[in-house]
């Protein structure tokens, strides 16, 4: 690996000042960044460690305001938080899928989002849970929904010197549920061949709203609006769920690469979307304290 310098700022302003320097890059868990730098896929002259900055490491579950999650919070803190696990089970589950235990001790959802791999597992979940991303940079703060953050494989909206601070998730409605399912040949330590996240809100047994987002079948994680809108106002029976899954399947634009064939991926989107919807509906029907 080429030489680079390292800084560990204690405050957000200090971090932003460092990130304004040429060749500076943020470092959270590093489980993607260091691998890519060693392989020569990404370069940096200065790594700015985010792990000592309060705003990026906070995790607050508040029944009223929802979840405030720092961008650098490692996956292990997410799935070990009982309150978060109870209210946002899909988020806890996806945090437990990324890599393996030692990876989850370091890897963050902010890192997963900024790495912007089309196969990122946590991004579809953030999308269906209506996560808002909080960015801060030289030109001040801005917010945007998770579905608008990635612009292409490895590309995001982040401007020069701009930093993802964290996420705000609205409080889950009563009678709502979410789930993420992915397909991997191995049961662990694998990258999604295809993935589908689904969230539904029920009102007296009928689907009031639904959001479906896919992984690994488009240049970015993909919110399939038409599939979600199709379900609103419809009963949550297998025909409707299957139809929504078909819409998701036709929206997918998979490629063939070392991890999967386009044909297999397209087929999997249909299967996974249906199963994710079934699990989300089941969770929505559960009465939770």
């Amino acid at each position: 690996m080429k030489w680079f310098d390292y800084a560990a700022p204690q405050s957000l302003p200090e971090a932003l000042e460092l990130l304004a320097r040429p060749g500076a890059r943020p470092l959270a868990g590093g489980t993607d960044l260091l691998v890519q730098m060693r392989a020569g896929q990404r370069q940096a002259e200065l790594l700015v460690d985010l792990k000592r900055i309060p705003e990026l490491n906070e995790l607050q579950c508040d029944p009223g305001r929802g979840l405030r999650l720092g961008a650098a919070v490692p996956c292990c803190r997410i799935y070990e938080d009982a309150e978060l696990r109870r209210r946002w089970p899909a988020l806890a589950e996806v945090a437990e899928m990324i890599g393996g235990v030692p990876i989850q001790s370091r890897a963050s959802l902010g890192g997963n989002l900024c790495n912007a791999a089309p196969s990122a597992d946590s991004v579809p979940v953030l999308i269906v849970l209506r996560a808002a991303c909080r960015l801060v940079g030289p030109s001040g703060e801005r917010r945007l929904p998770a579905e608008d953050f990635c612009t292409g494989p490895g590309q995001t909206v982040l401007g020069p010197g701009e930093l993802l601070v964290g996420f705000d998730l609205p409080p889950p409605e009563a009678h709502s549920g979410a789930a993420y399912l992915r397909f991997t040949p191995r049961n662990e330590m694998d990258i999604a061949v295809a993935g589908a996240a689904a969230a539904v809100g029920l009102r007296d047994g009928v689907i009031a709203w639904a959001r479906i987002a896919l992984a690994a079948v488009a240049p970015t994680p993909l919110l399939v609006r038409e599939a979600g809108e199709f379900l609103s106002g419809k009963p949550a029976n297998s025909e409707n769920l299957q139809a929504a899954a078909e819409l998701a399947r036709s929206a997918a634009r998979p490629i063939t690469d070392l991890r999967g064939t386009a044909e297999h991926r397209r087929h999997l989107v249909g299967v996974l979307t249906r199963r994710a919807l079934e699990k989300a509906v089941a969770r929505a029907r559960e009465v939770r304290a």
Partner: protein
Amino acid sequence: MSQRLYTVIGTRPVRHDGADKVTGRAQFGADIRLPGMLYGHVLRSPHPHARIRRIDVAKAEAFPGVLAVVTAADLPEGPDRLLELVEGTLPLSYVRANVLARDKVLYKGHAVAAVAAVSPHVAEEAAALIEVDYEPLPAVLDVLEAMREDAPLLHPDLRMREFGEPTGKPSNVADHFRHLLGDPEQGFREAELIIEREFRTVMVHQGYLEPQNATALWNQDGRVYVWTSTQGAFSAREAIAWVLELPVSRLCVAPMEVGGAFGGKIRIYLEPVAALLSKKAGRPVKIVMPRRDVFEATGPTPGTCIRVRLGTRRDGRITAAQVWMAYETGAFPSGQCGFGALCILAPYDIPNVLIDGYDVVVNKPSTAPYRAPGATQAAFAAESVVDELAERLGMDPIEFRLMNAAREGTRRADGLKYPRIGCVEVLEAMRNHPHYRAALEGPHRGRGVAMGYWFNIGWYSSCTISVNPDGTVNLVEGSVDLSGTRTSIAMQAAEALGLRADQVHPRVADTDSIGPTAVTGGSRTTFATGWAAWEAAQDVIRQMKERAALLWEIGPDQVEFEGGVFRSGERSMRFEELAARLEETGGPVVGRGTVNPSSAGGSFAGAIADVEVDPETGKVNLLRFTSVQDAGTAIHPGAVEGQMQGGSAQGIGWALNEEYHLSPEGTMLNSSLLDYREPTALDLPPLETVIVETPEPDHPFGVRGVGEANIVPPPAAIANAIYRAIGVRLRRLPMKPSAVMEALWSKER
């Protein structure tokens, strides 16, 4: 088990090397730190096939912190000659060319140059400054393509050998051999049911966790010290000596703890490079291979195309077999097709057999053995056709195999008669096992079985045993310990001397400190080196009897030894008591044992696999797996179980998700442990094991090597289970989810 016959053999002592391994003190090759040590980095070819026009190392040599740069020009270039190495019989020029490419690179990842510097990072940065002028050439990557007349030739000087005789025809086919038994045409005329199928398997890797490494010191007295992760210090010494054109005595090779090898660490890669760098820099140099290079530039196992044709009578008796098998050997002709040919029909007594085998070079890394090399691909083909025949005849798959099972006196495909073997006993143990009798309900579930064989080898080993005053003994051996053989050999010495296993202190020595000992491979070590230890123990006993005779003032032939006690009439003395009196009765007692047994008895292994297939995703979930294997006599049952479980896990990985995924141009796309999918703890069920014991006729304790046969049956057993689960025959490895889906879709069409 063999508990009744022996006292130590059959027990499960903790391995002698255990404490160092669980505390992190065990010394693997990369752990070495010598004063003044430099770090090496190898620059490798980005092209699968290209001519090297020029290499300019000036910028690299000038880079601050760099002390030496070498290329093939630094290798001696004496007259070429044919070498008989463990990896095969091939020209010295080929062996040298694989260490550092001279005028042509033959696979992506082929070593071209190397740098030694004060840190690994500096060495890596400097290597990137080496300018190599390549002239890319068309590459050939598929074994059938490479066999065509018009295929691009890897080696203009390679003449096809037909049945051992050069044919003068330039070709990528390095070798064509044939086995003929009886009259196959007549055999097929008698057959009432004939099935012929074609099978393809893809290149896979041994997948050991420890990357190749080598540290070398070219000493100022001209001797070269090498510390390396190798399966054979003496075989490595021989190969290094040829490559560097040094007498073997100038080399001392010290084998370090080996972090997994499975056949992949017989060949040398970094040792001569580190030595050349050390010679130039005047300081020791350590090179550790990055994981990507382990995949792209060591010795994976051949991909294959195998056609099997079997004929049986209505009553189930197999009358004839015909096999056509082509193995890709990678860049250089060190083929394993011949080994596959010896194993493919080994479990069966077939009177009429014709086998044609081809070793074919392709622009991929030069293949190396991988645990029963060549046999797993072959069994995947044959055991699938055997299963199809059984089903068509309406016979239980094990009964059908039992009816045709090889026994003592059966002739193998190469004509040799089997000595005492345990094929029938293994099949019966499979049939009687609770797993085979258990109900398997539920949709898309199926159970499959398969048989496997490895012939095992004997070869030479040396061992010394010296007696300590406290009655324990030091055992020094030349066999690198891959699978717990320090303990299995110490146990055999203990049994012979009437001692406990912990009273024998085993140590693996370097090439200066013990007699020549062949590589640890071919499942030979517990067999042959164990035998050498038994011989050394007999030598100790003979000398100790003389000492007892001296004390008791009788003739040595009047002294008996049994169960650790010397006796003559009423008088007796325990081994420990006599050991305390060696000084006064004549001085040290050191026993010596060397053996070179002709071939060892082979080992049969069977597998039973239950799978559940998700028809919507194509994923195969292994519900239950049982491995059954003949160990002759299980010295340390726990270590034998470990070999059976490890080999089964590798066979399962090979069956389901492991493959070299190449780009059309010949670049490996999945050269990481993320995308090269070895099974994790969550991908395997508990692995049940059954040890069968049909003693090997010649070995003093009846040992049969167990290291390899267990990897052979899993792919076929799983393929047969998938067929019974979803009704599709998969004839290509790996049987990954997308392949299963495609098979289901084509079945629906």
